[in-house]
């Protein structure tokens, strides 16, 4: 608390190996105080190992972990002021709600009156006053979630780790808990590190997101940066929906797609793709508009021709499915200005998108 600019959590070249397998490979990052940080990656990418190292359940092979500027390497898990909400919450079934929350305080040797007061306080803050004497199995999924967070927050940790805690909830509740978690984080003003494989959870809740793949961080940035300016093909493919094309860079900078169309991509800073490079091109569905070819005006757009196959109605997330020349299906955001709503299946359509919305990455050899 002395220096508000110092990061709550810092990892420096953190590496962990299991035999010949490198689970976490030279990962470095720092999380500013009071922010919501997510680590997003597919299962098996090493994110759980990374979290277990921060909590102290695994020892890193090399590198350093600093909490509030102090290295915690060699500090046992029960001495680190990092608390963790487990995937299945790990509430103690043989204790009631108050005993669960009081457990950590009792470990610290707090006296009875203080424990009662602080348990009452924290239950008030999470919006569940008066549930002290309830048994764990009497709570709903969302309530259990909040009790698990309260159990950690009552100890005023420097960092709260959350290991996919929404995974076990049904869809509706998950949507609500996303918002609730974000609000709780604001309320407690504590650094949250959230681990998930669900990109929508990460995008909705986080201040910053790290995308992890095969033990490495691919990119760290705000949700907007990840979505609009992904640094690698993996990030572009993993964060948000996108249609993917293969192509080759031609002399002059245009890209010839396998479907035969020629498109341009706005250059990304710091990368030059020489002619002849094979590339992956990603386009977000909401960046693509489907129009009748006759209705097109001007030619500033990239254009792919196809035939409207069907409408996929899903409320706000409705899409149109378009079959391109090579038989591939592309999802298109819907409805759009110059709407595809009145397009009938079977009609010829032109898909247009701006070069700025065209994300182009050199294909890895």
């Amino acid at each position, binding site marked *: 608390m002395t220096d508000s600019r110092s990061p709550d959590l810092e990892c420096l070249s953190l590496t962990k190996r299991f035999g010949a397998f490198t689970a976490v490979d030279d990962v470095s990052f720092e999380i500013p105080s009071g922010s919501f940080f997510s680590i997003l990656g597919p299962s098996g990418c090493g994110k759980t190992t990374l979290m277990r190292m921060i*909590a*102290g*359940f695994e020892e890193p092979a090399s590198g350093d972990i600093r909490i509030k500027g102090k290295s915690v390497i060699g500090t*046992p*898990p*029960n*001495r680190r002021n*990092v*608390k*963790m909400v*487990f*995937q*299945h919450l*790990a509430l*103690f*079934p*043989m*204790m009631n709600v108050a005993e669960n929350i009081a*457990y*950590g305080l009792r*470990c*610290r040797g707090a006296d009875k009156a203080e424990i009662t007061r602080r348990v009452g306080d924290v239950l008030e803050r999470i919006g569940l006053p008066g549930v002290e004497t309830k048994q764990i199995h009497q709570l709903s999924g969302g309530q259990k979630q909040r009790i698990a967070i309260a*159990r*950690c927050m009552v*100890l005023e940790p420097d960092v709260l780790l959350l290991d996919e805690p929404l995974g076990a909830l049904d869809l509706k509740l998950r949507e609500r808990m996303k918002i609730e978690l974000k609000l709780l984080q604001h309320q407690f003003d504590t650094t949250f590190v959230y681990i998930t494989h669900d990109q929508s959870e990460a995008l909705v809740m986080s201040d910053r997101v790290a995308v992890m793949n095969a033990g490495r961080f691919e990119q760290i940035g705000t949700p907007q940066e990840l979505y609009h300016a992904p640094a690698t093909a993996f990030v572009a493919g993993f964060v948000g929906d996108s249609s993917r094309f293969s192509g080759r860079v031609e002399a002059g900078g245009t890209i010839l797609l396998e479907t035969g169309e020629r498109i341009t991509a706005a250059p990304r800073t710091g990368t030059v793709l020489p002619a002849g490079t094979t590339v992956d091109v990603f386009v977000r569905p909401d960046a693509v508009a489907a129009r009748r070819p006759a209705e097109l005006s001007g030619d500033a757009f990239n254009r792919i021709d196809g035939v409207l196959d069907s409408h996929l109605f899903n409320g706000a997330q409705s899409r149109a499915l378009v079959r391109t020349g090579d038989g591939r299906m592309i999802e298109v955001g819907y409805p759009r200005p110059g709407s595809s709503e009145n397009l009938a299946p079977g009609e010829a359509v032109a898909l247009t998108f701006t070069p700025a919305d065209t994300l182009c990455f050199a294909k890895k050899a």
Partner: protein
Amino acid sequence: MVQKDAQRLALFLLLMPFALWILLLIVLPHLGIGYLSIREKIGPRQYEFGPGNYIDFISEPIYWNTLLRTATMSVLVTVLTLFIGFPVAYYIAKVAGRRSRAGLFLLCLIPLWVSDLVRAFGWIVLLRETGVVSGFLQWTGLVSGPVEFLYNDAAVVIGLIYTVVLFMIVPIVSTLDGMDDALIEAGYNLGGSRWTVLRRIVIPYAMPGIVAGCIVVFMLTAGSYLTPILLGGKNSMWFTEQIYDQFITRYNWESGATFGVVLLAFTSFVVWLGLKLTGQNLANTVAKG
């Protein structure tokens, strides 16, 4: 209708062996023993009903002293077995890897392949005056002459623990097996020391298994016959020995039956007391275990 009848018949046939077992081997013998125990012998072939046998039992200190001694020793064996069995069970369920778990479990079962008699004899070979332990101590020069390790309480307790420890390990392993490792990690994460995690999380979680194990071990120990006789010799003063004496040596079936009823009632009482003292109940234990 036909199907319903068939179902009923199937249920009836399935329950039949169980019902027969309960009736013929549990209920009937106990009724017989209960009947015998309240029958007083007043002359050759002359009997009348009364509590005389029970009064005899109470008025003869050696009888109820033997019973108390048996109960105390059984409680001691149960407690020691718990202390030995719990760490083993914890290791098998939580520390050992998935693959070695089955192997370790099997190793625990090996002693059961050998009969009680042979197992007790194994201890005799080790502990007797001319046995392995005595011989080894003489060979190392720690003692000058042969030492008798058999025929004392320690030998009986060791032998009994060896016979029953498995029945403690199995129920505890099965309860701990169902415990999510995250509970233990959460215990540490929230600031608990090893001792706190053990006392406040692992043991409460394993309680149904511990209680089940303790009941089985206590009942087996209090009702055991071979091990105390073979390892404790004439002085072992085990209550089952008294029952045997009454039935076989003295041919006093009435008295023997009385002792049997008393043993059953007393051990049941001890189990009930144990459950009360630890705040557990049988339904809880059986349902969770």
